């Protein structure tokens, strides 16, 4: 069974987790001046990275918290997980 490291609870089995899509997608801070293209990007457009990808996960059947992970989308290997608000640098991993 795939084991995922929750930043709060430690190593836990995958059935306790829910996938939350691409990480670090920031909502436009100034709605009044946000263009349609910026809204389109924010609402609908996501990367489809082959390889290391920053994504959100939630330990929904555990502590309930959202956190971020860097996962290899070709092997399903979790390189690291980190709390919301953090952003560890890793060679070969984009934004």
């Amino acid at each position, binding site marked *: *069974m795939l084991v995922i490291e929750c930043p*709060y*609870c*430690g190593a*836990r089995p995958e059935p306790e987790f829910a996938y939350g899509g691409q990480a670090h997608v920031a909502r436009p801070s100034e709605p009044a001046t946000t263009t349609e293209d910026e809204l389109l990007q924010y609402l609908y457009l996501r990367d489809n990275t082959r390889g290391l990808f920053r994504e959100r996960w939630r330990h929904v*059947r*555990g*502590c*309930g918290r959202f956190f971020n992970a860097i996962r290899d989308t070709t092997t399903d290997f979790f390189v690291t997980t980190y709390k919301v608000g953090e952003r560890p640098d890793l060679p070969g991993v984009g934004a």
Partner: protein
Amino acid sequence: MSNLTRRSPRIDATPWLEALPAMTRLSFRGGPDASAAAARGFGVALPTAACRANAVGPRAALWMGPDEHLLLAPLTDSAALRVALAEALGQTPHSIVDIGHRQVAFLVKGPQAEWLLGTGCPLDLDLGAFPVGMCTRTVYMKSEIYLWRTAADVFHLETWRSFTPYVVDMLIDAAQELVA
């Protein structure tokens, strides 16, 4: 727990399960200041370590998340506890939600308790990995459960009320292997 007994008539006839009476359950959310204040009103320290529970007499505080604790107390403490917590917390920002009726508690006990829960819970329940005093939300089969190990061979288990017949029946089905 007449409700539980009616819907799962086999629970008390099963040596591995024991229904627990209705109790006061408060879902407490708050930062470190609020947790410390709540502990003064509750009489039990709210654990800061992940997945750990503190119990003093019939009251217990279970870590459920970085800012979330489950407070358990006898049903008759409910009104007094409400007052004591309000006094201790004052204006400290926090949230307390009474979830006493949402969940049903029972024990999974005996030398086969660990094996029995292992039939549907993906956690490592070995005493070394899940020691006495550890608690967490997790799953049993397809249902969310709260699991708290109160002794080497006793687990306190809580499920949402409507999921209780499912969890109990799946446990009893799994236990057929012990009977054979």
